[in-house]
């Protein structure tokens, strides 16, 4: 499966697709990027006259790149219309603010993939290479 195949299989679309590029991916982890479009709707309200990317959106970016892209690779052939990947837990620390137009890189390392549950250690860095958030994210395969 190519990186492009994985992007194509992501179950998201605008305005809730938060993966631009997969830099590298294998069964043990993934690295990918996303650039925050300044026209994203939430910036007009978070905060008033002071746009900062909400923590829930940073968490979503980390989940889409770090968990869902890797989950698609790991499930490979067994992925079909009858199953979905559901987020089950997040434990994230937010270290620095992320502003509109910033490009972030997400690094995810598989802790385990057992009994349909994928748990990863995920780090997001900004263009200066500074860690902006780190944590543990887990998801599970569910039958629809």
């Amino acid at each position, binding site marked *: 499966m190519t990186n492009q195949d994985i992007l194509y299989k992501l179950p998201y679309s605008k305005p809730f697709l938060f993966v631009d590029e997969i830099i590298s991916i294998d069964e043990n982890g993934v690295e990918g990027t996303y650039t925050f479009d300044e026209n994203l709707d939430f910036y007009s309200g978070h905060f008033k006259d002071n746009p900062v990317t909400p923590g829930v959106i940073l968490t979503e970016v980390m989940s889409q790149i770090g968990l869902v892209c890797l989950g698609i690779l790991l499930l490979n052939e067994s992925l079909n219309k009858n199953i979905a990947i559901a987020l*089950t*837990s997040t434990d994230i620390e937010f270290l620095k603010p992320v502003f509109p137009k910033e490009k972030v890189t997400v690094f995810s390392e598989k802790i*385990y993939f*057992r*009994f*349909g*549950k994928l748990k990863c250690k995920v780090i997001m860095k900004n263009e200066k290479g500074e860690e902006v958030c780190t944590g543990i994210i*887990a998801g*599970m395969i569910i039958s629809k």
Partner: protein
Amino acid sequence: MNKEQTIAELKNIVKPYIANQEAFDTLTEDTDFINDLKINSANLVDVILDIEEKYDIIIDNEAMERMINVKAALEIIETKLSEKM
């Protein structure tokens, strides 16, 4: 394998994941992980992996599906430990 001791060890393992303190305090062999202790299915995977680590055993999918209560967990741990002998 000492049953009382293993139950005490199991209690220690499930403790971080339980959502029903009363069922935990009165835990017996018949206590069900999901229905009584209210451990969610995602966290049950962590319970199983913690059991694997604690007893240095491998729990397969078939055993995982059977591990619904304390009694089943004790049986599976005992079986897997005896297979190692």
